């Protein structure tokens, strides 16, 4: 799979648009799948409900996970991903507004690979996305897949 997808879990359409813009600005050409709440994110990853029929062995390169989400919040999504053999080692980057200590602590505790705070300054945001893309899409060697 030469062009593995990025799963963006984001409920705010402005943030979605800005994140896509920042990825484009950085010439990141990977497919971007957007899930607008926690339930949709899990459905996509496990091929259930609206995503029934999708091959769950097609695992994204990285998940960009917001924390404040409708239905299931980001930390609960992370907990369920880590509890499942198929997604246990999937790289997850928490990308969120807050740098509340309790969020960071719980995020890492549940097995997040990174924690990035979305800067208000859009230029800083572009720079953050550039570095994320460079690291997770190019530098980082992803773990071997465990087929279901």
């Amino acid at each position: 799979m030469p062009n593995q997808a990025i799963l963006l879990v984001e409920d705010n359409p402005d943030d979605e648009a800005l994140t896509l813009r920042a990825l484009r600005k950085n010439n990141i050409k990977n497919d971007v799948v957007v899930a607008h709440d926690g339930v949709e994110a899990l459905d996509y990853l496990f091929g259930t409900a609206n995503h029934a029929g999708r091959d769950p062995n097609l695992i994204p390169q990285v998940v960009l996970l917001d924390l404040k989400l409708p239905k299931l919040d980001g930390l609960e999504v992370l907990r369920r991903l880590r509890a499942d053999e198929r997604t246990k080692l999937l790289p997850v980057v928490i990308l969120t507004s807050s740098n509340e200590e309790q969020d960071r602590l719980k995020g890492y505790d549940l097995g997040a690979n990174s924690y990035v705070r979305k800067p208000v300054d859009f230029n800083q945001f572009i720079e953050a996305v550039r570095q994320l893309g460079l690291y997770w899409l190019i530098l980082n060697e992803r773990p071997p897949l465990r087929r279901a």
Partner: protein
Amino acid sequence: MSVQTSHPILHPTLLESGPLALAHSQDSRPEQTALEIAQRAVLNILEDFAAEKSDLQLGQRATLNIFEDFEAEKSRMAGAQRAALNILEDFTVEKTLLQAAQRSALNILDDFSAEKAHLHETQRAVLNILDDFDQENVKVQRANAQLEKEITDRQRAEEETQRANKELLAANRELEAFSYSVSHDLRAPLRSIDGFSQALLEDHADQLDSSAKDHLQRVRLATQRMSVLIDDLLNLSRVTRTPMRWERLDLSALARSIAEEVQKADPTRHVEFVIADDLVAEGDWRLLRVVMENLLGNAWKYTSAHERARIEFGASQHNGRRAFFVRDDGAGFDPRYADRLFGAFQRLHGPNEFPGSGIGLATVQRIVRRHGGEVWAQGAVERGATFYFTL
């Protein structure tokens, strides 16, 4: 006394004529018989006489015995008399003794009177004490009642405190939820405003004149300032929310590490840091790091208009307490406004002079007070500032 053996009746002539008369009567029968009778009579008399003599002897002996007895009695009497005299003598002694005893008895009675008087006094004293005791008892009872009331009051106050504490905890939880919400939700719209302003500037640059571009730049700057404000506000509230963890801290090492950081952020400046060694204090590491970051950061910021600057961290004595200080030779401040330095959102410089939100020193003050210390400042315009704090 001699014993007379001769019987007064037995005259010797009679005794000589007796046998003779008897001889006469033997010559003739009738006469003989008469003689014999007389003889017998004399014999009887003689016998009687002998008996009398014996009786007399007995009486004599008895009389002698009586005399002897009398002597013994006399001797005994003399003895008794002597004994009586002795007794009388003894009686005199006894009388003296008795008199002495009487005197001492009188003395004792005198003493007893004194004692009795004493006893009265003692009795009065005891009564007074009992009176006092009664009064004391009343007082104690009153105090007891007061104490009981105080205990009840205290229990009520304790309940009140517990209730207030519960309310405070609830308020704290609410504040935490509020802060959490602020940190997540207040920043998101700012990101949109800034991001899309930037998008306008980039994507529609050809449709925007310079004035429109300037407006958009101002919008972006304002959102970024607001973002800093929100962060500072959150930090300020975090300072009072987070529980304290006390430990021993090397403030000198902390100051050195912060100095390194600020120098790395702007290596073009010429600032000399003078940091005293081994300044150790007890406190919360994260909170005191915020204090040091703010004070050293301010010193760095307010010396930025000078070509060369000197920033010092040290300790001195103030009213018997050790005060740490951060001193710079920068812009300083007008001491007339010194009391406004530590108020939230209070600034003595315009944003064009020195940027800032006016929350840093308010945060410093909160942290220092949470440590039980005080913070104050000395300075003059363009002659630097010194910020002191105790812990």
